[in-house]
């Protein structure tokens, strides 16, 4: 158990951006919101998974929508607690703990807003260990935990509680509602008992994000290699250091898809790397050969600063280093691969282990 103060979110947001693997939204606004809430209501307590009582009621708090919209239509600030209260009314009991659904990107910061406003402790762990685009792509689904009942609240005060027959229906209905509500909403869902957490959350990921962000910042201050610092912290493999020479985008199936081509520089001269992304980076081919796939993390970092580069900001001429980072091993079980393996995203390949 430890207390998190507003200034600690700087490092955590930087690390969460890296763990977002190009998606999950820029944590900047989320960080400002969380800091504002913490200044108003006091610091947030985060607890290890093994500190949560077996009979605890744990609720995931997250945002859903388009990151571009969330950078323009900032929240009212009431959405998270409104969603939580609506969910509690349906459950007929109060939440005792909150948790992040994903550690990657904006959603690492959103639960801090609700935790500060309610005073509830926040679990140091998350349901992905990275960022994924759809509601059903969570490890608790592998042990039968459902996303619904799910409460959704918008900036205007509208709330909605979904009771569904499957996680896919939850995703589908929530996504439709989200668009109608203005493409930026907050959700309370994935209700778990304390004794289910160890089996279905990736532990200590908030701490990992903070340590990762700190390592990158300190490397920068010390004029050592921030990308190396990130790779060390994550047991990551450097796939290529190069320049973005082409980016192609298209929209299909409601999601922004695209490919980026990188040409190697320095020791990687004459090598190429192709990245395929759909909000997140999902597949990497080096010199034509697939060397990394979802659910492993493909992290694109600015070579000079170690700052994460989002898929929306992939641009011609950026100098980046691509890291492959092993995912939580539970994602590599048949159930995990079915939820978030390359074939789910339409790539005709099995998962490929990262090069060593």
């Amino acid at each position, binding site marked *: 158990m430890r207390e998190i103060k507003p200034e600690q979110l700087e490092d955590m947001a930087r690390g969460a951006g890296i763990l977002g693997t190009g998606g999950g939204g820029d944590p900047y606004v989320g960080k400002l919101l969380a800091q*504002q809430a913490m200044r108003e209501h006091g610091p947030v307590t985060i607890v290890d998974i093994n500190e949560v009582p077996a009979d605890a009621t744990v609720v995931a708090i997250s945002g859903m929508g388009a990151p571009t919209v969330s950078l323009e239509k900032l*929240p009212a600030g009431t959405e998270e607690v409104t969603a939580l209260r609506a969910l509690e009314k349906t459950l007929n009991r109060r939440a005792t703990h909150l948790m992040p659904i994903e550690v990657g990107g904006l959603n690492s910061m959103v639960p801090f807003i609700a935790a500060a406003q309610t005073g509830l402790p926040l679990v140091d762990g998350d349901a992905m260990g990275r960022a994924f*685009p759809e509601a059903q792509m969570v490890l608790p689904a592998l042990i039968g935990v459902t996303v619904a009942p799910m409460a959704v609240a918008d900036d205007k005060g509208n709330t909605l509680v979904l009771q569904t027959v499957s996680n896919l229906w939850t995703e589908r209905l929530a996504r439709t509602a989200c668009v109608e509500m203005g*493409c930026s909403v907050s959700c309370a869902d994935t209700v778990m008992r304390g004794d289910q957490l160890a089996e279905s959350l990736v532990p200590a990921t908030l701490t990992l994000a903070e340590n990762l962000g700190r390592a990158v910042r300190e490397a920068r201050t010390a004029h050592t290699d921030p990308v190396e610092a990130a790779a060390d912290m994550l047991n990551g493999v450097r796939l290529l250091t190069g*320049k973005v020479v082409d980016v192609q985008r298209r929209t299909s199936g409601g999601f922004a898809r695209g490919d980026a081509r990188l040409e190697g520089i320095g020791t990687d001269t004459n090598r190429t790397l192709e990245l395929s992304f759909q909000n997140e980076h999902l597949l990497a081919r080096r010199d034509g050969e697939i060397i990394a796939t979802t659910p492993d993390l493909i992290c694109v970092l600015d070579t000079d600063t170690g700052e994460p580069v989002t898929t*929306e900001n992939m641009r011609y001429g950026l100098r980046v280093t691509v890291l492959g980072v092993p995912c939580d091993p539970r994602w590599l079980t048949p159930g995990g691969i079915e939820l978030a393996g390359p074939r789910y995203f339409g790539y005709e390949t099995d998962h490929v282990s990262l090069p060593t």
Partner: protein
Amino acid sequence: MRIGIDVGGTNTDAVLLDGDRVLATVKSPTTPEVTGGVVAAISAVLTGSGVPPGAVTAVMIGTTHFVNALVEGARLAPTAAVRLGLPAAASLPPMVDWPARLRAALSPADGEPAVYQCHGGHEYDGRPISPLDPEELRRTAADIAARGVRSVAISSIFSPVSADDELRAAEILAAELGPEIHLSLSHDIGRVGLLPRENATIVNAALRDLAVQIVEAFTRSLTEAGITAPLFLSQNDGTLMDVEHARRHPVATFASGPTNSMRGAAYLSGLTDCAVVDIGGTTADVGMLVGGFPREASGEAELAGVRTNFRIPDVLSLGIGGGSLVDLITPTVGPRSVGYQLTEKALVFGGDTLTATDLAVAAGRAEIGDPSHIAHLERTKVEAALAHIAERIAETVDRMRTSPGPIPVVAVGGGSVLVGDTLPGFPDVRRPDHYAVANAIGAAIAQVGGEVDRVFQIPEGHRDTVLAEAKAEAIAHAEKAGARPNSVTIVDVEEVPLAYLPGGATRIRVKAVGDLDLTRLEESRA
């Protein structure tokens, strides 16, 4: 005939162009009082060429006054920020992410930032979030008036999609606060991303008084120099704005310096795709020209600790310039520099400091000052130090390039005598005529632009129609800004579908530029 002027912190450079020909150039010290330096520069190019003031058809000025005012936190007016969007965005009030020092600099006499959140604003698809409340805006106006604030920034959620609420709010505030009030509207200033767009709008509002003064000083300079031709200011993207626009949009000048250097380098060398190295007294700035325009940096630009989102050229700076201090033993050059004191401190000027300029003279690359002061320098050591400079500049150019193919490098700026005809890995290095005043040339040759950047709904199968609409709109903007109709071309198209958002919502950005219509200007003057 056009005069281009670059007013920098140290020097004011001016050039006189007749069509494609450079008739005269001058480099003179910038004066603390604006008018004197500009008058002196204009007079010098006119006298140098024997051209009468009446033959000048336009004057273009690039200036660092406004960005410097923000960096120094000085000469900023008390400013109010009015945001429309409640209940959305209530969680983060305007100026929430500003440095305390600047927030204080913009606050009225009572010391509290004048920030207001009101109803209004739109969703991403143009639906209203909540109706605008005229009564709420009138109350806000009364408070602004009571606090003695005379410049107001108005931002509305998704105003790049629908500017209606900003325009209506501006009408109401103008009616309440009188014709003297300055209003800056966010849809005029920036792009999608509320906080950075709002920040840029607030900065603009805070500079409005200064903009009126500076534009007035420039106009007076022209009058004193006997010129009746119209005045234009350079913008961040290398295009021009007229005086009326400049008074209202001072923030659009912020990155015009590097842009003008690069555009000038393109013009002088005749190249449209190349690397540009602009070497001044303290730094070498490296950028890339793509299709005749500077490649722009991705993401947001932080200026004096304020996050804004206008596009600025992608430039890497290296601490090497003509005034850089040199240690011949190691050898190292820079980042410390004698800066503007070069003509007192450098050995060739009889000073006591070994500078990079002394190396260039010793190696016979430049004839500056008195070479007898450096006769004692050991030739091999001079060559080694110059090789070190060449390597570091080449490394920076290599980091900026985007393909392994051969690219020419154009060296401009007063300090470009530091580099020779080649750099390691770059066999083609050019230093065109008039290299020292490339920035003033860039100002003189600037074109007029128009831009569209907003979220469009693209129904299935209608991509081409929507793109065509966006292009037509950008061209219309360019013509409205003074471009000759048949000269306007589209120079950039960018389409980014919004992530995690079904339904074809796509952010489209189109930029068009054309030649300034001088005939139309002359007709309107006649």
